[in-house]
């Protein structure tokens, strides 16, 4: 299955496979996070135009440079068309039926956790994210984003002692405008694509991290995103800058209530790594996926995540566990500019019910001796469709670039499908590019073999899936890996076969 490829400019192949063997291998666990928190919110009326963009900017008390950024992005967006090259099928999105801003009241700046409305604290407690004081005992700092607004950031004081800035992006715009101005849009400009332009125009909050030179961040940093309001889009923006010789590990988690309508989520994450810096970014995405029987509702997840390895020997690593959303459109990538820099992408994408995912990675090699690794594991069950789409591009100036790509798909059931769309563009003949791919299914014979040894069908499925995903799980921070395994198991609970 191993081959070294140079210079094709077309998709290598497209696999479509079905698994006829296990019609009813399991049934799904109900979505646990589907509740709504009744809270008074400050919501802008539905619809978008330049006045709405200006209104959001005014609500955020943006400085002038941000207002200009937003307005320019909005004008760009109006000239762009929604992309439809993905392998996703969905009806037209009415961008005028979405509210672009929702913030829990009070909207004044919160001075301490005591000022966070108790309903919101309880919401996060219910989600397993404790924002209260005792949280300080554990070694994770959390920025909690509720609908469009960051409601609390923990551990700020301790991080400040190390010179680390970890706050909401709206706070960063006010307190650290030079950093924001320098780096915001430097990795994903608003001209990049339709959803990037939309996000740049209307984003209201998100997280900001700056790690100063020669600093290893002493704890995991984490953002937890929660969509609460129906008919509200969530457009958060994350910017992480790791200065020379620094190191940071960052975790992102997401859930949303259960609505029959689709909520739009269009986020941007930008990472910048300077000389010898390392950023590790892990995501567990569990947005509401829609009704598993009818496919009704669920989040439309259009996300642009990109890292720039600007410095020499810098490294950016993406790890994602994608289990939620009705639609996932997401290609976290790395632009490898610094010599000897490296990018990694490890992904598990699980789709069941009527979920559709078109996800993968982009690795752009520009500097000399740059390396990248893509490990993608796609699991499709029920009526779901799961596509891997990846681009490896080696620029003409990129001497000795190396890429290793492995994309494996697994099918559970007889109505799901897996697809693979790898693109390789090599303009330098010194490049060494490897691509491996496989498609497998959980066979009835395998399950019976477990059962013949006294092991239940459910445990068999769980064990096979964990085995399939272990190359990705081992990249996650330890506690998170356990969570991720549990999440996969919960999604595929209870055999009915």
């Amino acid at each position: 299955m191993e081959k070294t490829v140079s210079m094709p400019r077309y998709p290598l192949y497209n696999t479509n496979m079905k698994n006829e063997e296990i019609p009813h291998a399991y049934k799904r666990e109900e979505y646990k996070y589907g509740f709504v928190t009744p809270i008074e919110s400050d919501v802008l009326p539905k619809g978008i135009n330049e006045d709405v963009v200006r209104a959001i900017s005014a609500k955020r008390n943006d400085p002038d440079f941000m207002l200009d950024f937003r307005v320019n992005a909005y004008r760009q967006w109006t000239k762009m068309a929604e992309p439809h090259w993905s392998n996703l099928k969905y009806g037209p999105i009415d961008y005028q039926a979405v509210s672009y801003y929702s913030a829990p009241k009070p909207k004044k700046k919160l001075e301490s956790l005591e000022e966070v409305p108790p309903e919101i604290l309880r919401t996060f407690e219910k989600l397993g994210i404790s924002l209260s004081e005792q949280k300080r005992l554990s070694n994770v700092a959390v920025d909690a984003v509720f609908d469009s607004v960051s409601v609390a950031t923990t551990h700020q004081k301790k991080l400040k002692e190390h010179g680390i800035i970890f706050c909401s992006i709206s706070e960063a715009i006010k307190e650290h405008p030079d950093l924001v101005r320098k780096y915001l849009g430097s990795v994903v400009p608003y001209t990049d694509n339709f959803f990037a332009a939309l996000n740049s125009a209307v984003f209201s909050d998100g997280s900001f991290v700056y790690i100063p030179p020669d600093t290893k961040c002493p704890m995991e940093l984490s953002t937890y995103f929660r969509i609460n309001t129906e008919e509200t889009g969530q457009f958060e923006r994350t910017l992480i800058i790791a200065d020379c010789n620094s190191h940071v590990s960052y975790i992102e988690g997401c859930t949303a209530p259960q609505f029959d309508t689709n909520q739009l989520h269009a986020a941007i994450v930008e990472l910048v790594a300077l000389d010898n810096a390392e950023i590790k970014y892990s995501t567990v995405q569990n947005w509401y996926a829609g009704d598993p029987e009818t496919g009704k509702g669920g989040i439309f997840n259009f996300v642009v995540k990109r890292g720039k390895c600007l410095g020499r020997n810098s490294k950016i690593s993406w790890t994602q566990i994608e289990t939620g959303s009705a639609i996932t459109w997401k290609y976290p990538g790395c632009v490898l500019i610094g010599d000897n820099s490296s990018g990694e992408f490890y992904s598990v994408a699980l789709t069941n019910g009527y979920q559709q995912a078109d996800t993968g990675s982009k690795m752009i090699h520009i500097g000399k001796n740059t390396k990248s690794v893509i490990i993608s594991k796609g699991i499709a069950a029920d009526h779901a469709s799961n596509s891997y789409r990846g681009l490896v591009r080696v620029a003409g100036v990129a001497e000795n670039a190396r890429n290793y790509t492995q994309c494996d798909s697994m099918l559970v059931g007889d109505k799901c499908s897996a697809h693979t769309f790898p693109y390789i563009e090599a303009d330098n003949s010194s490049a060494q590019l490897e691509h491996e791919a496989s498609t497998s299914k959980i066979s009835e014979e395998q399950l019976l073999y477990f059962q013949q040894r006294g092991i239940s069908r459910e445990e068999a499925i769980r064990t096979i899936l964990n085995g399939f995903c272990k190359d990705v799980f081992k990249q996650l921070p330890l506690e998170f890996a356990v969570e991720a395994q549990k999440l996969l198991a919960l999604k595929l609970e209870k055999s009915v076969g």
Partner: protein
Amino acid sequence: MLEIKNLVAGLDGMEILKGISLTVNKGEIHSIMGPNGHGKSTLSKILIGHPDYKVISGSVAYNGRNLLEMPPEERALEGIFLAYQYPVEIPGVNNAEFMRMAYNAKLKREGKELVDALDFEEILNAKMSLLGIESKFRERSVNEGFSGGEKKKNEILQMAILEPRLAVLDEIDSGLDIDALKIVAEGVNKLADGNNALLAITHYPRLLQYIKPRSVHVMIHGKIVRSGGHDLARELEETGYDRYIH
């Protein structure tokens, strides 16, 4: 222990077993012999509860219970073990971890405390050295990339770990060279302790030089056409099955 009465069964509406009766008591070794394609493996599939194989009539009692109503894992937990003719590969699942899961499933059924990975390693090492099995078996994925002989040894290793009450060996000798066959047969003999029973399904009589069955049954066209003692195996070695096939 096992009482099969007038069993008629098959696959995809095709009748393969056409009225089998067989009684296996505690402490006994039985052998079912016959040419390929006459229903020997079908019997093993019926005994473990393979969902594709359907019983048309007849009954199978196991320790007084109706075996045919028990789901596959229940049969395993009650002590029925099949050493597969063609063990299935399970990529990504560690062989030692797989055996620990199976072992713990058995302990759980017996109401005993489960073993952690370290304790299990000791149990596994003991069985592996008993059977002369190389340590690489531990690290690999279940049956993945194993040679035919290695897969058979792995089946016997699992049997040694799980200590079944009724072991069904389906063509355990096929594809084994003589040294491997001796190891497998020794392993089987070490496990036979008078409390369990063994049903060896085989095409070739040579296995029976190493495993001494109490009874030998010849299966032709889905029926047992002749039963006898160990002498019958020797006779079959000389005369073959031809005279039973009409």
